[in-house]
């Protein structure tokens, strides 16, 4: 039982990072139709900034906030400077995001270096819950993610902005005709998604080492999660993250580890072919004919 | 040799767009389909042209059953449709738009001469002479409509399904369009058209078919149909 709970927390902490990325991807695609290939790199940059700040002496949680701000600004610049021009042609935006991802990876290599980065466990404690030892940091990752998910979810379903956002996802033109500043929402969603990616990166480096190429590993899982959950569907992204985390945990425990990635890839291909809007209900994107 | 539609039914999920429609269209004639928005007119075209498969019913063309065949096959058999939104290959030149259609439409087969010597001839016929090199995407709407007709002609049709060809055109342009459409029966091309402009429909069409909520509620010569109380009731407030 103890091992199971520990495994559960472990898997959840991994799934948390994926969920954070997944939410960003699903919101951005659902609203703007932008498939941002560089989203994984946003996470990686968040992790790198965290590493940099922590190794310069800053407290982890302050560094975490710093990373979130940094990546948020990065996302803002990317949206305003690049993706904004391709809203009519999402394909171009996608190809541009490939360029952005390449640039970010190699700028990071330039500024830091290729070697993997890691930070010591920021909390370093072990909590004893109900007689079971749980690594505090992992639990915190899960808790923080849960808070973010709850905030996002209620924000979208209850607040004025959230409702306007969902309207825009459902029918962009009508929303615009009703006076919703859709473009500003696109920017807002993009920044929000980037901030979440930064948070994900910071949390990730608290748990695992990261390299400049970590982004491309994570993004596939992020896409898988958004597709399973349905593009534009936040709750679905969470469900998708949990499902994928479960699959991962099982495959690590019982299957062969090399094929772990393969499972999410196959799942993605199947979903893309059979139900492109996602499993649990979502959108085909704002320009779907 | 005709188009025979029997009991055509099309459901989209819970919505019944066509509720069992019977229509016969002889060639070399102009038949009109009218009805309020949502009555199933475009759906009828879509099903006949192969864009959608009917839920039930049959479409016979020249004696052959073409129900449910894919759109490109039906086009090659001589039924060519135009679209409500003026469609074109936007990034290609006007001439290429027409040329592509002529290379894929109904084959001329055997010893039959092609009707047209070149895409430019078709362009001249619809009033786009000299515009062959223009990019289709940069043309004004009226010309786009003409291009749509040119493309359809280039595909060597026996029957043209024109979906709201007058929508968005000025009075002059509509008059020109009417002149153009009147030529088709003499060229051996039957026409079936959908539109809301009652003057156009009553002048051009020998016969009108009226749809409402996916069913045919009237059929006959325009003067009779447009005075039929069932029809005027459906079109309350519409000037004829």
């Amino acid at each position, binding site marked *: 039982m103890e091992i199971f709970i520990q495994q559960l927390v472990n898997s959840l902490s991994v799934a948390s990072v994926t969920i954070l990325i997944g939410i960003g991807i699903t919101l951005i695609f659902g609203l703007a*139709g932008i498939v941002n290939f560089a989203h994984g790199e946003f996470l990686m940059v968040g992790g790198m900034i965290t590493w940099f700040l922590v190794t310069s002496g800053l407290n982890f949680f302050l560094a975490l906030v710093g990373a979130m701000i940094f990546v948020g600004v990065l996302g803002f610049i990317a949206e305003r400077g*690049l993706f904004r021009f391709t809203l009519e042609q999402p*394909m*171009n935006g*996608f*190809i*541009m995001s490939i*360029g952005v991802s*390449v*640039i970010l990876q190699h700028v990071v290599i*330039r500024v830091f270096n290729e070697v993997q980065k890691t930070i010591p466990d920021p909390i370093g404690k072990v909590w004893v819950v109900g007689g079971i030892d749980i690594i505090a940091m992992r639990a915190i990752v899960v808790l923080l993610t849960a808070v973010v998910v709850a905030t996002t979810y209620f924000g979208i379903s209850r607040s004025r902005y959230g409702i306007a956002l969902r309207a825009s996802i459902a029918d962009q033109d009508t929303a615009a005709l009703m006076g919703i500043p859709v473009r500003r929402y696109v920017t807002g969603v993009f920044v929000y998604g980037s901030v979440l990616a930064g948070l994900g990166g910071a949390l990730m480096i608290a748990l695992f080492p990261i390299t400049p190429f970590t982004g491309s590993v994570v993004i596939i899982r992020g896409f898988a999660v958004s597709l399973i959950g349905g593009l534009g569907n936040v709750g679905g992204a969470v469900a998708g993250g949990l499902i994928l985390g479960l699959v991962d945990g099982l495959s690590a425990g019982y299957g062969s580890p*090399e*094929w772990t*990635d*393969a499972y999410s*890839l196959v799942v*993605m*291909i199947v979903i*893309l*072919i059979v139900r*492109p809007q996602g499993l649990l209900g979502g959108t085909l994107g704002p320009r779907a004919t | 040799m005709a188009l025979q539609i029997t009991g055509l039914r099309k459901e989209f999920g819970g919505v019944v767009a066509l509720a069992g429609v019977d229509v016969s269209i002889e060639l070399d004639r102009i038949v009109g389909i009218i009805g309020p928005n949502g009555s199933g007119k475009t759906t009828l075209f879509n099903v006949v*042209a*192969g864009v959608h498969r009917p839920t039930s019913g049959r479409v016979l063309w020249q004696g052959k059953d073409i129900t449910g065949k*894919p*759109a*490109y*096959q039906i*086009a*090659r058999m001589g039924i060519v449709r*135009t679209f409500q939104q003026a*469609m074109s*290959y936007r*990034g*290609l*030149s006007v001439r*290429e738009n027409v040329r*592509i*259609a002529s*290379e894929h439409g*109904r*084959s*001329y087969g055997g010893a039959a001469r092609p*009707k047209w*010597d*070149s*895409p430019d001839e078709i362009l*001249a016929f619809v*009033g*786009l002479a*000299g515009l062959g*090199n*223009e*990019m289709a995407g940069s043309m004004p709407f*009226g010309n786009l409509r003409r291009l749509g007709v040119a*493309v*359809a002609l*280039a*595909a060597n049709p026996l029957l043209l399904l024109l979906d709201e060809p007058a929508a968005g055109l000025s009075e002059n342009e509509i008059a*020109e369009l009417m002149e153009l459409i009147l*030529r088709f029966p003499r060229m051996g091309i039957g026409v079936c058209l959908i539109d809301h402009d009652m003057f156009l429909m009553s002048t051009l069409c020998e016969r009108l078919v009226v749809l409402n909520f996916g069913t045919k509620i009237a059929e006959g010569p325009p003067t009779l149909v447009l005075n039929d109380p069932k029809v005027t009731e459906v079109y309350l407030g519409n000037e004829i």
Partner: protein
Amino acid sequence: MNETPHFPEPAPPVGRRRDIASERPVTPPAVQSEAKGRSGWVKLPSREETVVAIVAVVFLVGFPWCNPGYRFLSLAITTGFTSIALYGLGLQFGQAGIMSVGHAAFLGIGAYTAAIMAGRFGLGFWVALPFSALFSAVIAGLIGLPSLRVGGQHYIIITFCFCALLNIALTNGGSFTGAATGLDVGSIDPIFGINFDQLRNAYYLVVAVLLISLLVTYLITNSSYGRTLRAIRENEALARAVGINTGLHKIGALMVSGAFAGVAGVLQAYYLRHISPALYGPFPSLYLALMVMLGGARLLYGPLAGAIIVSFLPEILKLDPIDSRIAYGVGLLVVILLLPGGVSAGLLDIYRWLLSKRRR
């Protein structure tokens, strides 16, 4: 039969934009009659195109005579077979509008097929070449089937996933695929007494295949088949409405693209003499997409230009691999935002602008 219309001529439009992809000579084209759907008429090259072609051939053939040295000659060979793969991608994207970020997978299929044929069955280069091309084409066609159901962006992700899956399969393929270490490949059997271990001969072999690729690309682009693909790219619904079997043509374009990549893969395998899964993963695929966008997918020399820029510019500017990749990324952004047709389209526009200035 043809009556002259008697309604007024439409007013001449303001400003003429030129459609680069479909410039036609002055003589009116003929409409085909009986032979429907075959390659039909191929537009003959204009004077300018012929001149450029001659220059290109002279440049390609004459390159080794400029004493480039071992390094540049090897680089040229690599650029050569990369271009061949790019021409495939250029056809499927530039003509049919189907982008892929998994193209390296087909290079891999070609390369591994050749390596396994040589290693296990003792079949050499000359047999592997057509067979790998065919095999890659078939797989490309199969992978292309989803493109008939889903939109462009979704399909791109599918291609990425397929490439990643293939990578995993190759890495875990045990002794059959050589696993992560990969496979060794022998040398090309000499024909007509030409020994291809000599760098210069290898270069000419690649150039020969490249020229064939250029010719095939030209023929496809300027024939009815190319027009059909462009119609599908521009407006698929309209294409179906005029009788085009869009599904068949899309799969066909993807198969041709796969064949090009397969051929390139065989050349690569026999040149490098050792292949491994890392060469054919998602990253290389991304770089291929990048190269074809940079150079321009629609013009005849676009893919070649893209490959040359990406391969040679860092050498000439003495950029290290990291800076050069940053440059590629930036270049891609610039191209998408400012020069959507790629460098080749940009050069063409400059040429036309200069020409129009001269005519004043």
